[in-house]
């Protein structure tokens, strides 16, 4: 359920962040996708997809390569124009109130492509400024950089960072402002084990603070541990959605079946 804005600050981040949102009715999901359809010219990439993610919920977006996961994430954050359908972010329609809706999200891409000619700290400043979260950005940036072992690199140009460090920077950018909806595209790939653990903690903290989180991943054990619900896509359509228990039922497999077993069964059926 969605919490009051002042409670939506991740507890690990002590510096208060400005909140551009007014409270929503408790029952309103923070991320609501209705009949999302996306064509690339004549190729149907996503077909009539509907789902929602509530406050304090983590949903795993799974699917084979080319299933349309990245298209879904890019459509939700306004990079791609929907062929039809509606996306609502924290009560704001992406189609009608694009700027206000975008103010509520953070998107961490799969391949980190940060601005290489900024320093690490400048990059975080830039993202915070763009989201209107300038107050207290220094303290938040330092805290995030400490957590992700990037503090020593704070004044280095991004082009001097390794690939894993760039991925950590992209993650830090996702947490620098007061996002209510967090979208992650394969966030753990390329990050060292310590960083992976820290990132999982940060995601769980954000969930506990009432954020809605959608994670696209191929790491099924991580999805199993982290997510409240799983959504499986195949060829742009929803194959299955539900909690682990519901997926067990849907896949007609025993309780000892792992998510990997169920995923393979369901996608093979397709």
């Amino acid at each position, binding site marked *: 359920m969605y919490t009051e804005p002042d409670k939506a600050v991740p507890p690990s981040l002590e510096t208060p962040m400005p909140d551009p949102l007014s409270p929503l009715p408790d029952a309103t999901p923070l991320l609501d996708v209705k009949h999302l359809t996306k064509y690339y010219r004549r190729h149907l990439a996503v077909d009539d997809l509907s789902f929602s993610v509530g406050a304090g919920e983590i949903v795993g977006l799974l699917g084979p390569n080319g299933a349309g996961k990245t298209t879904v994430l890019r459509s939700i*954050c306004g990079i*791609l*124009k929907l062929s039809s359908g509606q996306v609502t972010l924290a009560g704001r329609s992406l189609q009608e109130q*694009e700027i*206000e809706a975008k103010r509520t999200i953070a998107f961490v*891409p799969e391949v980190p492509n940060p*601005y290489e000619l900024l320093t690490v700290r400048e990059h975080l400043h830039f993202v915070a400024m763009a989201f*209107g979260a300038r107050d207290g950005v220094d303290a938040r940036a330092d805290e995030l950089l400490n957590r992700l072992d990037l503090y020593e690199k704070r004044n280095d*140009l991004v082009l001097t960072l390794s690939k894993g460090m760039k991925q950590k920077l992209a993650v830090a950018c996702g947490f620098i402002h007061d996002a209510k909806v967090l979208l992650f595209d394969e966030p753990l790939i390329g990050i060292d084990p310590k960083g992976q653990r820290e990132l999982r903690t940060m995601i769980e903290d954000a969930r506990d603070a009432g954020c809605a989180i959608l994670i696209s991943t191929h790491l099924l054990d991580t999805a199993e541990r982290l997510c409240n619900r799983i959504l499986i896509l195949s060829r742009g359509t929803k194959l299955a959605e539900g909690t682990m228990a519901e997926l067990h039922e849907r896949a007609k497999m025993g309780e000892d079946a792992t998510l990997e077993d169920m995923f393979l069964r369901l996608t093979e059926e397709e």
Partner: protein
Amino acid sequence: MGALLYLLTRQWKGAALNMLRSGLRTLMGMFAFAVVFGQIFQSFYLFAALQSHSASRLPLIPEPILRGILLFILAAPAYAILLEGLQGNLIAFSPADVDFLFAMPLSQKTVLAMRLGLQWLQYLWWIALGVVWASPLLAHALAAPLGAVAWRAVVGASADILFALAASHALYIFYAYRVRSSEWLLAVVKWGGLALAILLLYILSRDAAVVASPWQQAARMFNHPIIRTLLLPVSLCVDLILSAQPQSVAMTVPRLLALGGLTLAAVAAVFVQRENVYEPSLAASLRRARWRNALKSGGISALRTERLRERDGANQAAGYAVADFGVGWITLVWKATQLAVRAPWRNLGIGAFLSLGPPLFLYFYRPPGLEGLIAYLTSIIGGYGLWISGVLVMGMVRNELTQGAFLKQLPMPAWQIIVGLLLPPVALFTLLAWLSLAAFALLFPEMYQPLLAPLAVVGPTMMGAVSLYHAFIAILFPRKKDPMNQLLSGMLLFPGWGLLLIAPMVTWGILVGGWARSVKATPPELSRMLWWSGLGVGVGYLLLWPLLVWLAAAVFRAYSPADD
């Protein structure tokens, strides 16, 4: 908007910091600035000298010819911008923009306005330099005050470039959403455009043939009402510059207003569109990224696979192979040959078309009365080809540097790597140039033969020198995304072209021409003189090669793949 300004200013600061990380790069950057500012002062001294010695006044160029020259000079960048824009390259944002900027709560129009403004500012820098260089001479030729010419040139060229940029963006967005989705409309636009271009060439050549002098023919073509209408903003810009003449009948203010109105209309055409501008730019960005990655991972054969994938979904590289030959640096030549064989056939087709197209077109069409003009144009096209080949080599070297870590670990001296990298493209361009020269020699024996033999010697040697200079700049400034790299490499190219391309050719022309006039040389004597002097120029270029290879190798030794 504040965030975007922050991003821009900090990126420039970062680019400067990155340049300062390398002593050599810093030194060359300072040299580039020194050369450019030296040339600026030189042009002002030239103006002062011309003004103070009225006897040395250059002969006034007739207005139609001057108009034609200005139209040609100003239309070239506008055309290049339009071409780039219609290929989606202007609207293609960087991967960082896609990942961060697109998902931010910023209006698309703001982001697009920033893009347009930034591109315009980049061109303004070159416009300002061009005006500073050219306006003293232009003012002298027009017998007009320097200030009057300079401000008109700056305002006119700035408006013209902004028009071209805005029109390119507007057309591409319209094309991406309205035309590309329809195959028949796409075919109509492509083939209809080609048919119209051929028809236009026919009309212009028929019209130009009524006068005798090649200069007048060119001027007549550029001043044709169809061309003036098609190039209306450029034409208005030229009118504006020419209105600086004291006796000019052209009105400054109405032309200024018309140009401003057209530019505003083009800018409005970009911003009234309600489409998602991120999507076509994302498609263009992704396509560029895929091609870049393909090149990075597997060179040109991977590019061919990518091309096949894009065209018909087939995922198969052509099965052509060249038997391996050589050891050491020769293997680099083998690799390049292998990849060239697997290159998209379209590239080979374009090369053959550019080499054989002009002579064949002229042979079959033979526009009556335009022989002199064609002779001039062929020389211009030849010079342009040399310049383009240098630019292509620079791109190739920068792409090779994406595999810099591999190249650096090769057990061979740096100069061998440079030679191995450059030999195949220079050889390929030489072959194409020879093909073109041979076609001219066969089809027009009476018109071109005296020049062909010397050009066949000078062309490749000059191309080698120019390519080596471009390779040197590419290794020194390898980062295509870095604005400081782009700026400095652009500025360093000018003195290089001046020293390697223009100065020797002009000197050669003046010396041979002067000699021929002074002794009233007969055609066979002139032919012999051209041949021997051409051989001398070729040998001169050949002697420059080791020096340029040494320079490029020295920079390559200092190059760190992490810089790219």
